[in-house]
């Protein structure tokens, strides 16, 4: 059963000239909180997240098409053959980014972020696609084309994607 709590708000809206809905101007509203909890599988992405705990950054490689997918794809969309895991160094180049002043609070990790934060798209060395993640750097230093690298965190996280983030390259 969902956890449902309700608070009532009753009002009578003004009727207008020739109001078609004059019979229906009493309005009641509730504050409802519906909580959903899932056992969420990371599926065939799982090894990426498991290896983050070992401070290793994994991509997948399609040996037929020679594409390196980061984030990983278990199935190459070009040839529809399963890929193989491939470790990348974790260094790369910032290609574009946005400075977010409003956090969606998607999970406990995101709710703990201070705004503004930098949502970055990084071309990891050896990868064919851009990897999205947070870039922790002084705003004035952030420029498209800058070199960055993966950093690994030690604090407990709700979602293991937060075991990593990007920082300016040393």
């Amino acid at each position: 059963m969902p956890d449902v709590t309700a608070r009532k708000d009753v009002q009578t809206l003004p009727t207008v000239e020739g109001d078609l809905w004059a019979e229906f101007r009493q309005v009641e509203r509730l504050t409802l909180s519906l909580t959903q909890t899932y056992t969420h599988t990371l599926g065939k992405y799982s090894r990426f997240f498991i290896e983050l705990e070992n401070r290793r950054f994994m991509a997948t490689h399609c040996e037929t098409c020679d594409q390196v997918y980061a984030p990983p794809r278990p199935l190459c969309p070009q040839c529809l053959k399963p890929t193989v895991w491939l470790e990348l160094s974790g260094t790369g180049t910032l290609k574009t980014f946005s400075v977010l002043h409003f956090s969606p609070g998607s999970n406990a990790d995101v709710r703990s972020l201070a705004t503004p934060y930098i949502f970055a798209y990084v071309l990891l060395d050896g990868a064919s696609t851009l990897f999205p993640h947070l870039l922790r750097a002084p705003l004035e230093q952030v420029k498209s084309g800058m070199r960055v690298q993966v950093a690994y965190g030690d604090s407990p996280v709700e979602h293991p994607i937060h075991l990593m983030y990007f920082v300016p390259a040393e």
Partner: protein
Amino acid sequence: MTRLPVIAGVGMTRFAADRPDCNPRDLLAEAVLALLADTGMPDLKSVQHGLCSYESDHFNRQMTLAAILHDQIGLLPTPTVRVEGGGATGALALRTAWAYVQSGLCDSILVYGCETNGRGVSSQTANQLFALSADFDWEMMIGGTYTGFYAAMMRAHMEQYGTTPEQFAHVAVRNRRNAGFNPLAQKPMDITIEDVLASRPVAEPYRLLDCSLLSDGAAVILLATEEWARTNIPRFHNRPPVYFSATGCGTDTMRLGDRYPHITHFRAKRAAAQQAYQMASITDPLDQIDVAELYDSYSGVEIQAVEDLGFVPEGTGGVNVASGLFDLGGQLPVNTSGGLLGRGAPVGATGIAQAIEIALQLWGEADPRRQVAGARRGLTDTHAGIATISVVNIFERRD
């Protein structure tokens, strides 16, 4: 006789930030009563098929709305189907209905869309729900938002082509001004480019006034063969026939990063436009289209759209938008309704409302302050995600 559908009638609510007196079925009732007034039909008993257009079970707090809404407007026991395609839902619904009529499955089909995206949902909940339409583990869980994805695209466009915040602010100003000429628009505003640039940053380079609206609303379009419309719609003879003449649809990766190195433009939109132009025998869209409703989810997205739709060459959208080419009185007025920025965007109704604006323009029934004189062919551009699904529909007056 052609089975190409005509627009047999239209109806919509005013779009609003908050309708405390309406759940989705109440909103749809208003839109359908507007359709009855528009067509002169006493009820919908002659309509053969329904097609339900809504995006989110979460926003509407109801699943299987197709059956519930079908009952609400007296269409039981005729068939119905739900179509969902994110932000493109309304346009995809119309495209699907086009195929239902063309196939001979039915001669008339009511496309009904509604959504409660307004203040019944807190902005944080709204962002979380919209983030569910991003990639859950790879974008949403990091704290990504659609404003952020679009903003990163726009930054790449700015860096590659020299597009400026002043240029996309032009869209934010113009579309909200156009909304002032549309009594059904949610939030007309008389603002300046300076106001846009001074509004608070949301996801840089986008600021608050670059962002479109969250809305409650409903919109319906009755599509039919011309023969059916002539027999069943009392007021059909009073108007020039407007055909739903062409449709295209394209797709792209959900994550922007997977599109690398093509991160400044909407590949799906280009594919959708090519299909629709081929079907409508359009070779020079800027010259051959008279009015268009573009998906201005963010101001800069309209600049990308005028390039992807082939109205102007790649990289020149900013300069051309700022020149007034797409303003009322310009060569190809766009978002005369106010667009998503000014008219509003209850998702399942948005694409339908865009098509209603084109129909009004082609019938010559828009408010004189926004009517495009002599408009005979119009286009709608609607997309999901960051153009993960893109739909282009074309309408033509033939009299």
